[in-house]
């Protein structure tokens, strides 16, 4: 069965969506992802959509769901690599993906997650813990 691979990078999980999404694939991805977050104690999820030419309301909702689910499991979600044309189309459609954090590329997304993590950790007075 078709599956979207989930890679572990430090404390984070990297999901790169490179095929057309459909209901079954989205459900499998959500199940796999929540499973992996719990198993690996991941602190953040990076969703790379740089390979997607088209992002419609379906994918938009799926990204929202992933972000919400990760938040429940105490992991931040960042969507990275959106193309300019895709961004313009989404805005014209009125889908500005509220509640989802975005970054230009994987590098910047990681930076963002690390920064958010450091802030949270120091806020809760547990001191910094890396790796």
């Amino acid at each position: 069965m078709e599956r979207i691979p989930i890679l572990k990078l430090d404390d984070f999980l990297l999901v790169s969506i490179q095929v057309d999404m459909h209901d079954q694939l989205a459900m499998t991805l959500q199940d796999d992802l929540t499973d992996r977050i719990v198993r690996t104690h991941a602190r953040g999820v990076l969703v790379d959509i740089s390979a997607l030419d088209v992002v419609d309301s379906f994918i938009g909702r799926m990204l929202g769901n992933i972000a919400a689910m990760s938040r429940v499991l105490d992991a931040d979600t960042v969507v990275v690599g959106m193309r300019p044309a895709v961004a313009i189309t989404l805005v014209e459609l009125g889908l500005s993906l509220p509640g989802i954090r975005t970054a230009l590329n994987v590098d910047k997304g990681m930076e963002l997650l690390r920064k958010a993590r450091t802030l949270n950790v120091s806020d809760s007075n547990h001191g910094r813990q890396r790796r």
Partner: protein
Amino acid sequence: MPANTASSLADILSSNEEQLLNAWVKHQLIAKTRRSDLIKEADLRRESAEFLGAFRQAAEAGDLENVDHPSWAPARELLADLSRSRARQGFSPSETATFVLSLKQPLFDALQQRTGSVESFAMALWSTTTLLDKLALLTTEYYQKGREEIITRQQHELLELSTPVVKLWDGILALPLIGTLDSERTQIVMESLLQQIVETGASIAIIDITGVPTVDTLVAQHLLKTVAAGRLMGADCIISGIRPQIAATIVHLGVDLSAVITKASLADAFAVALGRRGLKVTPTAQRLREESDHGTDSDS
């Protein structure tokens, strides 16, 4: 019969060319549509002579019905150049068309002197007048085309002028907007901004609207769209250059800009952007020394 008219017309044109030219130029000079401020008599005479020459050649070729015929090409060319240059100079369409139409009177006079019977005169008159009308229409058409070319060029220049994306610092872009924002311009602004975000890897974009004369709900919506698109690309947007009247207008219209960071001046926005990047502007050691020596006030 048209062939007959053609030959007689060609005959008149070749034998009375000088006389016709004089009469025609005189008609143009006394016409109400004469623009002595835009064109000199000598130029008018030269243009008239050139056209008359081309007209004679075309009439000698014998096709008076069809001005699209290759034999009319030189005459059409001349009219096209003339109409375009007059469009640029600021002539009105009727002033431009009068150039050809004022040839009617002298030509009819010459025809009248030459043709014998009333019937053949009426015939010649008809074909000549249709021909000249066609040429005048052609002039108007070329004039219109000339005007459209000017408008298209200006629109193009305006669009190019209005969308520069400048890099202020590593990771900080600025987009100074000048003029009203319509949907077409927003599209172009958005595209160039997002393109620059990708190219420079910028994480903050400052949209400066000092040059935007008015902000209504539509313009605000376009601004918010640009901000949302920037955010989707992972860049935070700051709107700066909001003048007092515009701030008041935005509030009166009930436009919600609370989701966006807004600053009064580009300098303030730049300071915020630097802060986000973890940077700070500090005076140099020399500046500090000078200040402590002279007690001058700083403008940071």
